[in-house]
């Protein structure tokens, strides 16, 4: 992706925006980019806990906007991943304090003066002002969608609003896919979702229990030692954002001895 300021959004809540922001942000930093992840969900901030940095929040985004602290004082450096920084949202202040124009200037400052290569903005759910502020500085978007009717419908709405706001480089992440259910005919497949929404695909993340475990302990899954399907795909999304041609995962649920035999003989 050409876009250096990317908003992570979905319309519907609970589909994995914050998890995606934390993991793609950490994975991009591990690829060598200097990354800032920004939480714009004023009053309902969560990116700090998902990343395990909640104990280090002193200043927040609104403090920066209102000049109570310097940008560098509010940015929390992640000690586990080089070049990864978090700018937390305010949990207590009035959300109207976040002005789209000033927020745009903040993101510009990070990219032009503070030497950041990429800024990921975790958007609040909904289509109101919070989302519009989050999208204001963005040149591109990661639209996170679950293969489920309400999430797809809301994503369609958000895609329309992004385009109306001039955010043009938009990519689709199908999150929490259950390959077995798709194969059984009980879940929308990636091709269905893509056909309906008409956005280029950049990631297919399978449902993975390891995500909840990583949130429990406050460690993004991409920096944990164990190999997980979701962690691998989040790392691959980062590489695709950087322009690498990484094949999408083969999520055929056929596994084990008989699964392999069936596959060899071309059965289903």
């Amino acid at each position: 992706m050409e876009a250096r300021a990317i908003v992570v959004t979905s319309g519907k809540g609970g589909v994995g925006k914050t998890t995606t922001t934390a993991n793609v942000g950490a994975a991009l930093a591990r690829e060598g980019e200097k990354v800032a992840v920004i939480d714009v969900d004023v009053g309902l901030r969560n990116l700090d806990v998902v990343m395990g940095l909640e104990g280090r929040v002193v200043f927040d985004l609104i403090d920066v906007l209102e000049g109570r602290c310097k940008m560098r004082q509010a940015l929390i450096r992640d000690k586990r991943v080089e070049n990864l920084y978090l700018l937390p949202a305010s949990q207590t202040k009035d959300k109207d304090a976040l002005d789209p124009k000033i927020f745009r200037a903040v993101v510009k400052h990070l990219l032009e003066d503070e030497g950041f290569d990429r800024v990921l903005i975790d958007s609040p759910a909904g289509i109101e002002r919070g989302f519009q502020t989050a999208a204001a500085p963005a040149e591109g978007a990661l639209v996170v969608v679950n293969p489920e009717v309400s999430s797809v419908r809301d994503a369609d709405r958000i895609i329309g609003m992004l385009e109306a706001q001039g955010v043009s480089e938009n990519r689709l992440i199908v999150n929490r896919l259950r390959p077995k259910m798709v194969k059984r005919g009980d879940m929308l497949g990636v091709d269905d979702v893509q056909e309906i929404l008409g956005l280029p695909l950049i990631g297919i993340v399978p449902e993975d229990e390891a995500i909840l475990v990583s949130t429990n302990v406050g460690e993004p899954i991409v920096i944990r030692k164990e190999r997980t399907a979701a962690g691998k795909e989040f790392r691959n999304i980062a590489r695709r954002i950087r322009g690498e041609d990484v094949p999408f995962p083969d999520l055929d649920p056929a596994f084990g001895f008989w699964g392999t035999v069936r596959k060899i003989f071309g059965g289903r």
Partner: protein
Amino acid sequence: MFWWRRKSSKQKAKERLQLVLAYDRAKLAPGQVEALKADLLEVLKRYFPTEDKEMEIAFEQRGERVVLIADIPVRS
């Protein structure tokens, strides 16, 4: 998968989504469709006898396009 199988819930989800998105994208509230139906009926009645009950109006996804389908029986 097999022709004798019932329609899968996935297929139903897709069809319902396509329909609801057709309305969403056209920025049409369901009430507006009713109003359109009443207006159409009024015009049609000037030319031939038709009844409200028999008329059906719906949006349908046809490939890339969303089309308006009006099903109007003509009494002879």
